């Protein structure tokens, strides 16, 4: 089958853009879920949409997957307008929602067969595609068990497999790892990378900064229905310096002395930030500052319970951008730790 038929045409757009959202607005009764959100997913890339709960991520995904109509703004997916040509969009996208949307009373294989048949595959093709996907997602052994017997991770994988049944050009992954344990999360990351290797474009929403950092080429940060940043992970990190020094004096009486020491080494003295009382997190240019800080602490006889140098996490980025500390966000990945 060819993409272009007599009844469908793609709106003019750059061939390098898989998804384009332009000024999307959506309200639910009193709540303004989206207040003019714009972003692009380049073809064959992963765009990470990052934000806390209630930021509007899911609403944006549902609009792009044609499940919701925007109040204003427009969006094109695979070159088709989501409002005017929803059917063309649906032919080309796969959606994996926050909650696995599989039929629990069918087996894994039956779920995939059903989707294949609904996509008008011939029965034989639907069957072989199901086998292929079950194998890829490591579900072959569980293929003929009802999905309600699956673990959370297996269900998510089956859900993702269902989304990929029709070889979509674009896959929307709405918080694909929420609720999974860390090991399962990394498995899922591998799967996402594999999808992209096959030429699929991915829009991924997440509240895990670590996840966006690990997977996404570009990151859009959304908060309260607004895009507050749209950049590469690399550039976003530059906003907060290349490393983050964390330090916590044992005795709160030393707080001010510690603050003074940190102000000397920080990239920006104004950003010596006290997260909780007596707990500092400071952007520094590189790890060469560490010995200096340690010797200053030693000569001032300040004991610390924590002294660590971490890769700047997107948590810091988020904090810098919004001024809000979000407790649910992941901790930065610590690469070095010195205990006093």
């Amino acid at each position, binding site marked *: 089958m060819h993409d272009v038929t007599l009844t469908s045409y793609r709106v003019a757009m750059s061939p390098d853009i898989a998804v384009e959202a332009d000024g999307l607005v959506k309200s639910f009764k009193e709540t303004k879920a989206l207040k003019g959100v714009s972003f692009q997913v380049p073809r064959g890339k992963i765009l990470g949409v990052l934000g806390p709960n209630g930021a509007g991520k899911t609403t944006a995904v549902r609009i792009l997957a044609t499940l919701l109509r925007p109040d204003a703004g427009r969006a094109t997916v695979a070159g088709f307008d989501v409002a005017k040509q929803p059917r063309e969009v649906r032919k080309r996208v*796969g*959606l994996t929602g926050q909650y696995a949307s*599989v*039929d629990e009373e069918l087996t894994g294989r039956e779920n995939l067969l059903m*989707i294949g*048949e*609904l996509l008008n595959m011939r029965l034989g*093709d639907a069957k*072989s595609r199901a086998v292929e996907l079950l194998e890829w997602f490591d579900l072959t052994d569980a293929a003929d068990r009802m999905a309600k017997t699956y673990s959370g991770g297996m269900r998510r994988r089956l859900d993702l497999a269902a989304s990929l049944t029709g070889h979509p050009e674009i896959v929307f992954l709405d918080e694909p790892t929420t609720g999974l344990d860390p090991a399962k999360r990394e498995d899922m990351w591998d799967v996402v990378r594999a999808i992209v290797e096959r030429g699929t474009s991915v829009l991924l929403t997440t509240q895990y900064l670590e996840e966006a950092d690990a997977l996404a080429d570009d990151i859009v940060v959304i908060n309260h229905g607004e895009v507050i940043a749209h950049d590469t992970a690399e550039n976003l990190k530059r906003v907060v310096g290349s490393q983050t020094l964390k330090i916590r004096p044992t005795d709160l009486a030393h707080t001010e002395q510690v603050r003074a020491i940190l102000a000397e080494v920080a990239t920006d003295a104004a950003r010596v930030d006290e997260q909780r009382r007596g707990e500092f997190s400071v952007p520094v240019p590189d790890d060469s500052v560490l010995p200096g800080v340690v010797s200053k602490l030693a000569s001032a006889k300040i004991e610390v319970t924590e002294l660590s140098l971490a890769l700047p996490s997107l948590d810091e980025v988020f904090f810098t951008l919004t001024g809000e500390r979000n407790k649910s966000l992941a901790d930065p990945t610590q690469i070095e730790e010195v205990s006093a």
Partner: protein
Amino acid sequence: MTAAATHEVTATIPHGPLDVLRHSWVLAKRSLVKTWRTPEGLIDVTLSPIMFTLLFAYIFGGAISGSTQEYLPLLVTGLIGQNIAFASVGIGIQLNADMEKGIFDRFRSLPISRIAPLFGAALGDIVRYVLLISIMVGTGYALGYRVGTDVWHFLGGVALAMLFALCLAWAPMLVGLIARSQRAVQGIVFMTLFPLTFASNAFVPTESMPGWLRAFANANPLSHLVASLRALWNDPNGPGAVADWHSPVAWTLLWCAIFVVVFAPLAIRAYNRKA
């Protein structure tokens, strides 16, 4: 660019006007598989009707018709009307569960007609109604009921009852799509069905009712269905006979059309709107 990714698509059957039917069939298979796996979900169309038949025949038979045997031609047809209406709650509950579990999001994100999931659910329910009618007639036979016409009239009655069931189903489907829990679906549907099934000719002659109630009972769609079954099945000279089937059948068909015209668009709209 994406040519490779898109054209790797395995051979698909071209989209056409038959898609709605094919997709509905795929989704009907889904509910059939589930019915097969959880046969206890069939209690409302198997054991309940048997229980109703026994209770009503022996408790009300004597009081209403003088004897159980005399009552059976009224009762079997009346109970089929009532139980078809009661069984329709199942589809509402099923749709509500589907919505809650997110599987509808999956269907909505697929390039299939939006009527297919609803139509498929109704189609899958046919099995339940076939079972229901067979069991009711079978129980009636065991108690002594006999169809007094011929096989064609009998099958005509079965077909009419099935059609009625499928058209009526749009109402509980609508409830299933707008109610916020499965319990609410059950409450709303039964609250509507109880007066509808009892304020009818199903169990007692409407002549015994006060005027206002008789007017309602005579206009009641279920009364028309039950009258049609009595006309098509019962011995024209025996108890519970209705002389001519043309008029009640015409009324029943009209009501079927009304159910579809009113409730199907509302149900489809509710399905499309559900965020």
